[in-house]
């Protein structure tokens, strides 16, 4: 290992290989209005020309995006609420009320929120363990998420799953095993195609999971059978404590689908996320087969609650991302700059978000823990269980 450690600097310092000549734009606030932003009518804005990089795609998504004030304000409120919720989870964890594993998506809010505004409730999403914002955006509640984290009956899996195991009827959950949800997503897309439903399935994973063998297995099957599946890599630059450059021979994750076209997207500008997801959904339902979409984003916190997140990157780096590329501050900048709302009005939304989260936390905390009998439910379908299951201690045996 000592030899390896000595070798590493020369490897790590190599300039990262770039497919496109120019680096992807990763600022959150580079979109410009094309016509006068209007408070009640839709208006056009133009994304920075480096918001997308393409791989085997004839053309990138349109840089001109139609938005409305209402949509931008809603997205702002939702991102702000998601961040508040994750901060509440952070506090509850540190207060030892949430135990076990907990992965927060602070910094990555633009993806869950932007995606939801581009797709319909019929479209399907499956993701990995950093799943809380998706669960809420896909029809869950903050109380349901916090309740699940706390392991209470009010939780979306009745308190039996925990942080990584939250589902809604169109969201196939957080999944705790790195990469395992990707072939499952391909299967979901297959079933949707079999039913001839005009919907897209978004199978999401991180830059860390992108090196799992089964991700490539899923790519191959999806392309082979032309499945309406969008593989979404949320590249937050670190797979646990190892940077993308140290873990991946090719860090351009959108190019990893071989024959599957790819799209790299500025994941910090929610308008770019929105436009890319609209493009991806359209791509999938138009019979083009799969697409590999990479969002370049950043997580402010550690990988999980047990990781301070500062041993493998500098505090300055995190601070720089927070102050220059934050997706919520980026959208705030647009709203204020374009004269859609004032700072005070946005502050009011922030306050509402905080109040909403605080209330949900209290309600979740008031919910009781799962009943002891529920330890043995939902293992097998009711009525088909084995005669008995063993319990927590020797004498505790549950007979069905």
């Amino acid at each position, binding site marked *: 290992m000592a030899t390896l450690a000595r070798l590493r600097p020369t490897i790590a310092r190599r300039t990262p290989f770039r497919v496109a000549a120019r680096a992807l734009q990763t600022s959150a606030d580079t979109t410009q209005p094309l016509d006068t932003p209007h408070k009640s009518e839709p208006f056009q804005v133009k994304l920075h020309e480096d918001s997308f990089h393409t791989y085997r795609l004839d053309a990138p998504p349109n840089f001109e995006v139609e938005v409305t004030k209402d949509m931008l304000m809603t997205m702002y409120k939702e991102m702000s609420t998601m961040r508040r919720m994750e901060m509440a989870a952070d506090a509850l964890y540190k207060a030892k009320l949430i135990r076990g594993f907990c992965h927060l998506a602070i910094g990555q809010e633009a993806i869950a929120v932007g995606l939801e505004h581009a797709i319909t409730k019929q479209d399907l999403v*499956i993701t990995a363990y950093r799943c809380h914002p998706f669960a809420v955006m896909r029809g869950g509640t903050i109380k349901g998420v916090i309740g699940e984290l706390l392991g209470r009956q009010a*939780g*979306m*899996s*009745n*308190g*039996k*799953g925990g942080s990584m*195991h939250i*589902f*809604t*009827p169109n969201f*196939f*959950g957080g*999944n*705790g*095993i790195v990469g*395992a949800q*990707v*072939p*499952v*997503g*391909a*299967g*979901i*897309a*297959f*079933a*949707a195609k*079999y*039913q001839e439903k005009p919907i897209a399935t978004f199978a999401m994973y991180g830059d860390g999971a992108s090196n799992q*063998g*089964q991700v490539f*297995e*899923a790519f*191959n*099957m999806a392309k*082979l*059978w032309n499945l309406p599946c969008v593989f979404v890599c949320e590249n937050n630059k670190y797979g646990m404590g190892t940077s993308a450059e140290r873990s991946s021979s090719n860090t351009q994750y959108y190019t990893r689908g071989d024959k599957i076209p790819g799209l790299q997207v500025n994941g910090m500008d929610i308008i770019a996320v929105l436009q890319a997801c609209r493009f991806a959904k359209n791509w999938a339902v138009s019979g083009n087969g799969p697409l590999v979409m990479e969002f370049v984003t950043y997580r402010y916190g550690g990988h999980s609650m047990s990781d301070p997140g500062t041993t493998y990157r500098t505090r300055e780096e995190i601070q720089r991302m927070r102050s220059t590329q934050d997706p919520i501050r980026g959208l705030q900048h647009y709203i204020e700059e374009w004269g859609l709302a004032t700072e005070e009005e946005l502050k009011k939304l922030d306050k509402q978000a905080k109040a909403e989260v605080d209330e949900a936390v209290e309600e979740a905390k008031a919910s009781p823990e799962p009943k002891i009998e529920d330890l043995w*439910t*939902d*293992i*097998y*379908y009711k009525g*088909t*269980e*084995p*005669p*008995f*299951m063993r319990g927590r201690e020797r004498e505790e045996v549950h007979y069905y």
Partner: protein
Amino acid sequence: MNTYQSIRDALSHALVRDDTAVIFGEDVAFGGVFRCTMGLAEEFGRERVFNTPLSEQGIVGFGIGIAAMGHTSIAEIQFADYIYPAFDQIVNEAAKFRYRSGGQYHVGGLTIRTPTMSVGHGGLYHSQSPEGFFMGAAGVKVVIPRSPIQAKGLLLASIRDPNPVIFMEPKILYRSAVEQVPIDDFELPIGRADVLIAGSDLTLLTWGTPLYHCETALHMLASPPPQVSRHVPESLRGAKVELIDLRTILPWDVETVVESVNRTGRLVIVHEAGLTAGAGAEIAATVQKKCFLKLDAPVKRITGWDTPVPLQYEKFYIPDAIRILDGIVETLIY
């Protein structure tokens, strides 16, 4: 019908009765290496019966996704020896889907068919019996049939069981076991053992291929051939041995086995997988607890050796009739 024909017949019933049912796996559209899916692609279409790439983890993950959408998803892993790459998908995803979603989702429509056990010359990667590895995976069921009729009834029951099922087909029986199989759609119960021969002196418990070796051993016990007769005391030749086919390995039929051992006081378990932490270990532990005061002899396990399945000496690896006979005699005279 032999076993592969009865399995093909069962699959055909499953596809006819259920529009959402799909069959996929390596080479299944061509009929599969053991001919279990012969002609199904032609009959039901390539959209419903199709080949997959050689990627077991992907196949099971893909099957879980289909089942999570409420479909009937019948995956084939070409040999049980190849199921290990899919172990994570089976144990962490399929088995836990219902529990970790608080009952919102399940993959009950998933059935994984896979040929198992030895053929005499399969060697390390074509003769293993991995059923024991799945015994701790609460949430899945593991079923192993012994004959064509059993295979058809149990497979249809497995496909329609609202839990994910691993259906392991003893591959030597595909051609060698022949029965008059009813052509109707019928199911046999999962989770229930089958008492094949009633007896009162010893319980002989097994599943799959070794059942036939057990049967031979019982004939040898009653009328030993000259070469072994001196090892079989006259007094034991009239022993009444109860032969049980366990059929479902998870959840296994504790009630039937315990009831039997409480009557006979002796238990011999036979399986092809190695001794250490094989399925027999779990059964022996439960039986010694539940039948402790009724046991007249230690629970005996006659199994494969704790080595890889060797190519050249595979016949010596598997528990054959002589070893079973020896185990029965030893347990009876204990």
